[in-house]
């Protein structure tokens, strides 16, 4: 099926939204990961609902990046299973046996899992449009003109309509990261992974990238974000996951994990991050609603339903219409 901005609108209260295909269900079961003798992930179990926003917090070295990278099989797991919409990532399951998939199959699976890196990793020899169009052309075989037209739409969505033909090195860090987000969106992923997307940025550039990610939370894609921006986590997360030493210490809605942490380690970590960051921005006002987004926060116990993307759901600039292909079904 395909969805167009003109069809009957769904709301968050719709009991049976049939738009679930927009976001993928990620299931992580009993995942262990070792590098040699070092066990980095020690049994991770996590269910990430379709269309939900999950923020992963934790001290340095706790395995956050590694967990994220196992989700798209950049790191194969040592033990356990990861699946997206029921499809095991990196393996084909036959009863008790897991057959390693051929690279071609893994690449196909990755096209539905986008990733944004801390260090952007834009292709330095390609323009912004070239960067965004590359994966659809090479991985999905979209013709060049079509891919580039889409790329321009996506770059417009992230507010870079004046930077189409500019090379990454001629862009600011924040702009580069926005190109990287557009590049990840170009494959219409069911799941988007962000590994500290703002850590490499100057403080004044952080907000422009967070604004783009915030706009994505309304588009129905499942988002998994590793970040140290606590107030951002409070703002957008349905679930906050706190990791330490390769284990999930606690998880729950931000109001619980961030404001009433049950574990001493979480409290200590939040304390450390707060004293560092909150000295600068005076008042994150934990209970006040986010200023930009007037929509009420979803109930704490239920994950946010994937809503039908409205014409402006993704656009930073509300006058920009949402490109049709973003609202259509994922590639089958």
């Amino acid at each position, binding site marked *: 099926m395909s969805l167009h901005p003109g069809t009957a609108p769904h709301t968050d209260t719709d009991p049976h939204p049939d738009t679930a295909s927009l976001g993928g269900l990620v299931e992580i079961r009993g995942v262990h990961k070792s590098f040699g003798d070092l066990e980095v992930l020690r049994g991770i179990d996590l269910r990430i609902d379709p269309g939900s926003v999950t923020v992963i917090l934790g001290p340095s070295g706790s395995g956050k990046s590694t967990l994220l990278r196992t989700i798209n099989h950049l790191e194969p797991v040592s033990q356990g299973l990861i699946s997206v919409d029921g499809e095991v990532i990196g393996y084909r399951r036959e009863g008790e046996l897991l057959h390693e998939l051929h690279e071609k199959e893994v690449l196909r699976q*990755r096209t539905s899992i*986008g990733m944004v890196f801390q260090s952007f990793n834009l292709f330095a020899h390609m323009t912004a449009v070239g960067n965004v169009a*590359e994966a659809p052309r090479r*991985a999905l075989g979209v013709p060049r003109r079509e891919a580039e037209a889409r790329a321009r739409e996506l770059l417009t969505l992230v507010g870079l309509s004046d930077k189409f033909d500019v090379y990454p090195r001629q862009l600011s860090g924040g702009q580069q990261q926005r190109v990287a987000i557009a590049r990840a969106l170009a494959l219409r992923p069911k799941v988007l992974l962000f590994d500290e997307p703002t850590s490499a940025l100057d403080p004044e550039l952080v907000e422009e990238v967070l604004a783009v990610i915030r706009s994505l939370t309304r588009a129905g894609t499942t988002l998994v974000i590793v970040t140290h921006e606590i107030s951002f986590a409070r703002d957008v997360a349905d679930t906050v996951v706190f990791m330490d030493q390769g284990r999930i210490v606690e998880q729950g809605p931000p109001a619980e994990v961030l404001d009433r942490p049950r574990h001493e380690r979480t409290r200590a970590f939040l304390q450390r991050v707060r004293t560092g960051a909150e000295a600068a921005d005076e008042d994150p006002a934990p209970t006040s609603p986010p200023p930009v987004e007037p929509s009420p926060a979803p109930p704490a116990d239920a994950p946010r339903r994937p809503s039908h993307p409205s014409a402006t759901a993704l656009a930073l600039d509300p006058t920009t219409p949402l490109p049709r292909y973003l609202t259509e079904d994922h590639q089958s």
Partner: protein
Amino acid sequence: MTSSVVSPETTQRTPTATPAAGHATATGHHEMSCPPPAAPPEDLSRLRVVPARHPGRVVLAVGVGLLVAVVLYSFVTNPRWEWGVVAQWFFAESIIRGLLETLKLTVMAGAVGFGLGLALALMRLSKSGLISSVSWTFSWIFRSTPLLVQLLLWYNLGYLYERITLGIPLTEITFFDARTSDLMTPMLAAVLGLGLHQAAYAAELIRGGILSVDQGQLEAASALGIPARDRSLRIVLPQAMRAILPTAFNEIIGLVKGTSIVYVLAHAELFFTIQLIYGRTQQVLPMLLVATLWYVVITSALSVGQYYIERHYSKGAVRTLPPTPLQKARARLARLRPTPTGAPA
């Protein structure tokens, strides 16, 4: 140009520009330190940049210039160079034919060398230990054997293996069968010898370039589901080119001149032709000069090509591309054309 704080004459006359410039800034400071309400705001557009002087460079340039002049003078005036003979033979038909043969050898050996070199480099970086050791062994053998030996071995392959046969072993079926000495022309031996030798070096060169590309580029491409072939050819190689090109052109220029070694196979390329001629006419030096001048011409053409190809691949790697010599010349012309009104005559 507008009238300036420091008059052009003062800067020209004083050999060291620093006192004049220092004076200019001092006056500026003096104006600025005046009580704010009384002083009119300083007109910053009047400030002028005085370029730094480099007396050492001037001395060096003059020295080098003199040296070049002396050498050129001796070239022109020494009758032993026999410029008349050089001119007579420079465009001679046999020379041009030899030159074309040299170019043909260069192109073919270069294609074999860099084509195979790329394959070897990718093999060497393969995760499979077997494939990577095959590549390593190839480079090891072909870099350790002198080029002259390789050429003679290929040419004399017929002595080692009389016939070359392609078929299914232990059956009567053959697809191809020929006498080796019929197949192995001097040209083929030369292309094989030069090409395989070149490939061993090109492989290392390309591998180095590939290793210089940030690992994050490959990771991002894998995460986007881009197939391995495109990751190599579209993401990594174009970026590796920047590191590869300068040395690769060095190698190609070396190859142009390296083809002269093929004279041992009596193949009529430029250098062999030259030797034939001076063997007959005894005009050794002027003929060597003819060859040298042609090699200079080829190398110069390659250098121009190198400049533009390197420029092409530095797109995105530098914030702004420097102008090409042509663009610079045009810009200079454009600056000259409209008669500057304020310029000092």
